[in-house]
């Protein structure tokens, strides 16, 4: 799933300062799962903005709405009759949300309320970790099911580098050295020959380096 984190409230307040009617739009997708953009969080942000307004002698009207997803036009359409009533819309969906809203409602001021971070999963309740860099050519099976592109700080395909220490990456004790894990796993499974095999330079064409991407399912397109 896409993992995001809330923007500091100060930053959000700066975006919408002097605006009187605000709509906060959440999303029941990924951001609900990582507890930053669901109905609850919409409520918390709305309440915070209202409190701020009252504290500063302004009456800020904040409406709350949570869409099923902000990455599908049919759901984005749901607010077409109300969005025009607001001075600003804060989307707390991932980066797709503010953009889809901006495209669908070009005359509305749309602001992002979260910082989208990565594609990852939950390690335990409350902790999410990056797993995928969206390189477009998945080869995790060559590395014991672990991805060096997203999880090695240097995206090495022939790792590890000399900075691996106690299973941790040189950049931080909090970052696992994925190559340490890859090598240990594959050596334990007697797959040393696979590890020794030279991995040639990666083609980054299918990654974001090749340009903004699309994925089309022809059999579904009208």
């Amino acid at each position, binding site marked *: 799933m896409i993992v995001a984190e809330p923007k500091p409230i100060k930053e959000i307040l700066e975006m919408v300062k002097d605006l009187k009617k605000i709509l906060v739009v959440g999303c029941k997708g990924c951001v609900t799962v990582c507890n930053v953009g669901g109905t609850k969080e919409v409520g918390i942000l709305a309440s915070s903005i209202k409190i*701020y307004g*009252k*504290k500063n002698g302004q009456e800020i009207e904040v409406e709350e709405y949570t869409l099923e997803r902000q990455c599908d036009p049919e759901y984005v359409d749901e607010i077409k009759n109300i969005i025009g009533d607001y001075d600003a819309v804060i989307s707390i969906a991932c980066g797709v949300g503010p953009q889809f809203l901006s495209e669908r409602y070009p005359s509305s001021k749309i602001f992002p309320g979260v910082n989208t971070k990565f594609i990852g999963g939950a390690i335990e309740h409350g902790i999410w970790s990056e797993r995928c860099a969206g390189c477009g050519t998945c080869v995790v099976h060559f590395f014991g099911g672990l991805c060096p592109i997203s999880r090695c700080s240097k995206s090495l395909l022939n790792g590890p580098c000399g900075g691996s220490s106690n299973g941790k990456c040189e950049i931080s004790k909090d970052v696992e050295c994925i190559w340490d894990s890859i090598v240990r796993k594959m050596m334990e499974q007697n797959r040393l020959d696979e590890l020794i095999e030279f991995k040639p330079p990666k083609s980054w064409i299918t990654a974001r380096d090749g340009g903004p991407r699309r994925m089309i399912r022809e059999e579904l397109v009208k």
Partner: protein
Amino acid sequence: MNDFKPQLVAFCCSNCASSAAKVAEGMKKALPDNVKIIHIPCTGRIEILHLLKPFEEGADGVYVAGCQEDSCQYVSGIAKATKRVMYVKKILEELGSEPDRIDVFNLSAGKGQEFVEVAYKMVNTVKELGPFLSA
């Protein structure tokens, strides 16, 4: 400033805090009348939004009274509530307000005296800070 009477909302769990409240009643110790008590089964049930809403509605301070960490009847309720109170302290700061307007207290069942003391303590703290929505 001295005759400012802060309005407080207190979330009290049914275990420790409420039994302490009963003891206090029995001891004829009066709670300050500007503290509104909200009884809840366990402080773990409190959400961040519950802690923000009183401020939105004009409260000057909020506190949570629950069990000691090692004797919470529902094991981790008070621990969760404490984390949420800390989160709201941060929100208050970001909104340009004082984090001391919200706090969490660990009480033992039957400590009526403490229950009342905590209420007065919080009232005094918030009194010093002044009204939440200043003029």
